[in-house]
């Protein structure tokens, strides 16, 4: 519960500072930053990622096993491609949320 609260607060903070569409993916197993370099590397290759946000469009949070992804305003999220990039990085994406302008997290089905 503590981790979830921290994650929600963090996502709200991030949502207020970013202009792109922001998404959060819960990734099982992603507990080491060295081992998860490939996750960020693969996501950055996706055409819809907004490199102007976060760290070239991606932020990895191993404490909560979350990946923050910024999507360009003129592009659409390709969920299958995003999950594929994470799996190719060696980990298991589980859930994805969109962060609204008000900071609310909406889970995508």
């Amino acid at each position, binding site marked *: 519960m503590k981790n979830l609260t921290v994650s929600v607060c963090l996502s709200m903070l991030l949502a207020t500072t970013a202009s792109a569409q922001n998404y959060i993916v819960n990734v099982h197993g992603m507990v080491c930053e060295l*081992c998860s*370099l*490939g996750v960020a590397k*693969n996501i950055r290759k996706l055409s819809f990622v907004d490199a102007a946000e976060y760290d070239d469009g991606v932020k990895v*949070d191993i404490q909560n096993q979350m990946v923050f992804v910024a999507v360009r305003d003129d592009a659409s999220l390709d969920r299958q491609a995003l999950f594929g990039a994470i799996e190719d990085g060696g980990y298991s994406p589980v859930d994805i949320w969109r962060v609204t302008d008000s900071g609310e997290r909406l889970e995508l089905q």
Partner: protein
Amino acid sequence: MDRLLIMLLLGISCKAALAHQPVVDMAPRWNGGYGFQTRVEHANSDTITWLEGVYTFKPAVRMTLKIPFTDDGLGSSIFAMPLKRYKNAAQYTSNWGLTPSVRVPTGGGSDWDGGLSLSYSAESVDVYQLYDLHVLGDRRGLDINVGTVHSDGRGSAWFTLWDITAVDSDSGQRVLTGPVLVYFKRNIAARLEYKLAAYDRDDEWSGNYLSFTLGIVY
């Protein structure tokens, strides 16, 4: 494919630290990832410099090459193919590994040796553990690394581990144990280990073991 050829030409490293695989046993675990590391080992009044490389076809299939250099020149290289089965859970990741290997007489001679390793590794945000049971030629061994992880959340972390290495060979038996420090920042990793000879009935072994590894992954 070009990366693979370059890696093979550059070569890789490992003798006393037989069970460990580049880079620092952990990376890269992503498709198409590759890396290099240099390991300098000092034991038995000898120093061996290993050049090691790894290419990850996909998380379950890697290829590693370890090439040793001594005062006498090039030694026997070890080619291995770590096969891993990962389990990713909410708070940790773990894997079982099966690693067939072959020691090639690149330093002269004609003796080829086959090897096999069975390993289990698990890691959470705070704890790391590795158990590796291995055989190569006349050597059989068990390597255990267990300890804590201290991540700063900004791309770097310290691992403070304890290593226990038990080896049985035609020349006798030995057990070495001691601390290991692993540090990484972004894609660069370093490992320092010092092991005491807690038990030494090995005719070809004398004293303690020191090694330093510096690696990089892409």
